[in-house]
């Protein structure tokens, strides 16, 4: 997939303002990879995820699927095209019709696309339920009889019925107990290997995103701040926001082993209705400069495959308070 100059704007309820949910975003998703998208509230990551699977139309710019814009497809062709680009949501309850059995929910997409006949659909449905680790006797149960983790597996099974190429996973483990998240994440990894799937994994949970991603994109208030390999972004972040975000994560280690200095950001995330001018992050950035108010930072490839939107980052790291005071004294104040 490719995202080009994507903007998604929503009018506020009173119509007087617009929420700039996604504001000029550019990136590619490579076949077979897991791209993690991390961000906090108002970052636009959920809106972005839905736009990737054509659930939301771009206000400007494009989302391209293998070079083609799905918005240009005719109705019938679009319907066939959509099976390759699927999504699993956060709330496993809300995603399942409480009045349909598990098996009926799982085979519904195949029915909609008129694939096979009743018998073949049931057979495939049972196979895919088994593949996600659910026993045969679950097929005729109803959602309320399953746990959260089991329901999420049903949602994954339903998506797999269509053998998609890409699955957008929107906070898929956030609603699950911590001790069973591992199972669901392991299942995702297995399925990716077996079916050659491409994942876009959207989450606010740093520990999850760093564990499963090949590459990570960091979003803030509708824009990308950083994009690179998971190892680079986590171990050697180049953007001050990424650095602060990573340091904010509480680590379950004894005090003697918690050595990273925490960068505490002042204030809170501004509203996406009136985001700050220039660099969106400047109101909370510990090293913001006058240039940050006046000029939107360019999206620069500081190292091969590692992109950053900050005026002062270099390939060696994010701007530090030392470097900034040197910079200022060079400029003469």
């Amino acid at each position: 997939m490719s995202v080009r100059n994507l903007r998604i704007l929503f009018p506020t309820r009173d119509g007087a303002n617009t929420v700039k949910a996604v504001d000029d975003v550019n990136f590619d998703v490579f076949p077979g990879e897991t791209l993690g998208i991390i961000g906090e509230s108002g970052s636009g990551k959920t809106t972005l995820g839905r736009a990737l699977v054509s659930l939301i139309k771009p206000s400007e710019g494009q989302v391209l699927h293998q070079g083609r814009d799905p918005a240009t497809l005719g109705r019938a062709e679009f319907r066939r095209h959509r099976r390759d680009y699927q999504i699993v949501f956060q709330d496993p309850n809300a995603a399942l019709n409480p009045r349909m059995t598990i098996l009926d929910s799982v085979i519904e997409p195949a029915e909609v696309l008129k694939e096979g006949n009743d018998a073949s659909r049931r057979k495939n449905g049972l196979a895919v339920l088994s593949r996600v680790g659910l026993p045969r006797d679950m097929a005729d149960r109803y959602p309320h009889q399953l746990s959260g983790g089991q329901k999420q597996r049903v949602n994954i099974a339903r998506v797999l019925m269509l053998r998609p190429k890409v699955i957008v996973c929107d906070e898929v483990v956030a609603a699950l107990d911590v001790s069973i998240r591992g199972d669901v994440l392991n299942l995702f990894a297995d399925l990716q290997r077996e079916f050659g799937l491409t994942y876009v994994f959207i989450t606010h949970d740093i520990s999850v995103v760093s564990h499963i991603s090949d590459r990570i994109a960091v979003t803030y208030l509708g824009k990308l701040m950083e994009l690179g390999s998971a190892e680079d972004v986590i171990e050697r972040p180049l953007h001050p926001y990424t650095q602060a975000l990573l340091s904010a994560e509480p680590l379950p280690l004894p005090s003697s082993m918690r050595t990273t200095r925490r960068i505490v950001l002042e204030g809170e995330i501004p509203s996406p209705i009136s985001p700050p001018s220039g660099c969106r992050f400047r109101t909370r950035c510990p090293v913001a400069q006058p240039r940050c108010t006046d000029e939107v930072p360019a999206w620069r490839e500081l190292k091969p495959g590692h992109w950053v939107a900050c005026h002062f980052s270099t390939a060696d790291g994010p701007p530090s308070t030392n470097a900034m005071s040197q910079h200022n004294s060079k400029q003469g104040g």
Partner: protein
Amino acid sequence: MAMIFQEPMSALDPVFTVGEQIGEAYRAHFPADRKEARQRAIAALTEVGIPAPERRCDEYPHQLSGGMRQRVMIAMALICKPKLLIADEPTTALDVTVQSQITDLLRTLSERTGTALLFITHDLGVVAETCTRMITMYAGEVVEDAPVDDVLMKPRHPYTSGLLRSLPSLSARRSVLPSIPGRVPPPNAMPPGCRFAPRCSYAAEGCQVRQTLMTLGPQHSVQCCRAAEISLPGAVN
């Protein structure tokens, strides 16, 4: 005693200003008129780090962000100088960059005022950073009670160990994540002996009877009949 909750928006009354609600908490326990209550509310807002407290005092909950509302809840909870503050998942609904502000605030305030803090959470990272002692609960029972640093290094109950091992931050990137098989027993179908036994890889004969909390060391109690003989992985291995 005072308590703060997970969802500040549901806990705050939308039709009263923030100052009125903080003042109400004070006036419920001490004689004071509205003027004095308002002054005390402003002081409380200052203590929890809200800028421009005189202005914020007259705002409504919907005008504040999630992090600010949680600070208001903390102000409301601490205004009567309780001996105990119970915080039920106070940061779960907040962004991680705001979460660290709130946990720092709670810890600083509790240290400064001497208020005991009972912090309820599922997030072991938050426990590690904010708490001195950790009690692990399972299916309605206390299964382990120990100083935080000790229990993170050497947990003595298989459930605590399982929780620690399942954390992605403690596993190598892209590795298979351990998890605890099975699910928590429903309240009407509790196992007769140890409630964790059906999911425990160390379960043995002695686990089929009701367990009791045993003291293992100074300050470390555990409810596991095999605690003395098993060695469990912790946060660091």
